[in-house]
């Protein structure tokens, strides 16, 4: 019931913020209306970081406590993170074409490290399908999830460390949080969209965790069935 309330609040918040981003906040003087794409693009990128961060922490939790609930959280983070990374890349491409003149540039460190992030976590999800043993699967996934998380700070700070096409942080760096490089109404809309997306993320994480737990229970029931069948065959001989 509480999860359902979170879902409806998230839906209302996202609907409101889409209307604000598309029809209330003015267009940027230089970028024009294409700048409106920045709101869901930045929110998606933030949630990609958060999701993969949760996957890494849950991986540590599994290795430490050997509790499969951690693995379910890790799976939820990876799957949802892949989706938000894809959204961030797609939104960035749709913004890049009218503003930069290109959809993509492989020489740009932010773009390339983000593509690598997507590939790493698609690999993580594929790796999980290689074995049916829940413990072995959780251990392999935890190691990959922790190692892959090294790319998160590289993606974030790539715009500060190397020169490229992608601009530096507008508000997401320590020196710009209190002094953002954008007008207040743009920043407030962006913060609103990030909060609305985070509510959606919370709802999706809970539901994906519940699904992972249900799948684990089904796997366990199937395993017990197989053992019982084998014993019945043995007894009938």
């Amino acid at each position, binding site marked *: 019931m509480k999860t359902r309330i979170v879902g409806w609040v998230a839906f209302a918040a996202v609907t409101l913020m889409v209307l604000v981003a598309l029809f209330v906040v003015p267009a940027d003087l230089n970028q024009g209306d294409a700048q409106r794409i920045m709101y869901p693009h930045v929110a998606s990128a933030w949630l990609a970081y958060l999701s993969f961060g949760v996957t890494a922490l849950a991986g540590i939790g599994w290795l430490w406590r050997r509790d499969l609930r951690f693995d379910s959280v890790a799976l939820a983070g990876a799957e949802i993170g892949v989706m938000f990374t894809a*959204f961030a890349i*797609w939104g960035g491409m749709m913004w890049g074409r009218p503003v930069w003149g290109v959809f993509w540039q492989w020489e740009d460190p932010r773009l390339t490290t983000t593509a690598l992030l997507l590939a790493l976590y698609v690999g993580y999800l594929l790796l999980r399908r290689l074995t049916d043993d829940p413990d072995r699967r959780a251990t392999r996934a935890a190691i990959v999830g922790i190692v892959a998380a090294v790319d998160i700070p590289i993606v974030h700070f790539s715009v500060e460390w190397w020169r490229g096409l992608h601009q530096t942080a507008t508000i997401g760096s320590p020196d710009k949080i209190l002094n953002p490089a954008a007008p207040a109404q743009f920043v407030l809309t962006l913060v609103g969209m990030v909060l609305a997306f985070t509510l959606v993320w919370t709802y999706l994480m809970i539901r994906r965790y519940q699904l992972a737990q249900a799948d684990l229970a089904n796997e366990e029931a199937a395993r017990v069935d197989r053992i019982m069948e084998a014993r019945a065959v043995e007894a009938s001989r």
Partner: protein
Amino acid sequence: MTDVGYILAAYGVIFGGLALYTVTLWRRLRRR
């Protein structure tokens, strides 16, 4: 509004994708 095609493509894929994932997740949970 300028660049309508790019804005529609971005918002359509992101919010359409979110809606699709949410519905798929909800249906998979109901089947369990």
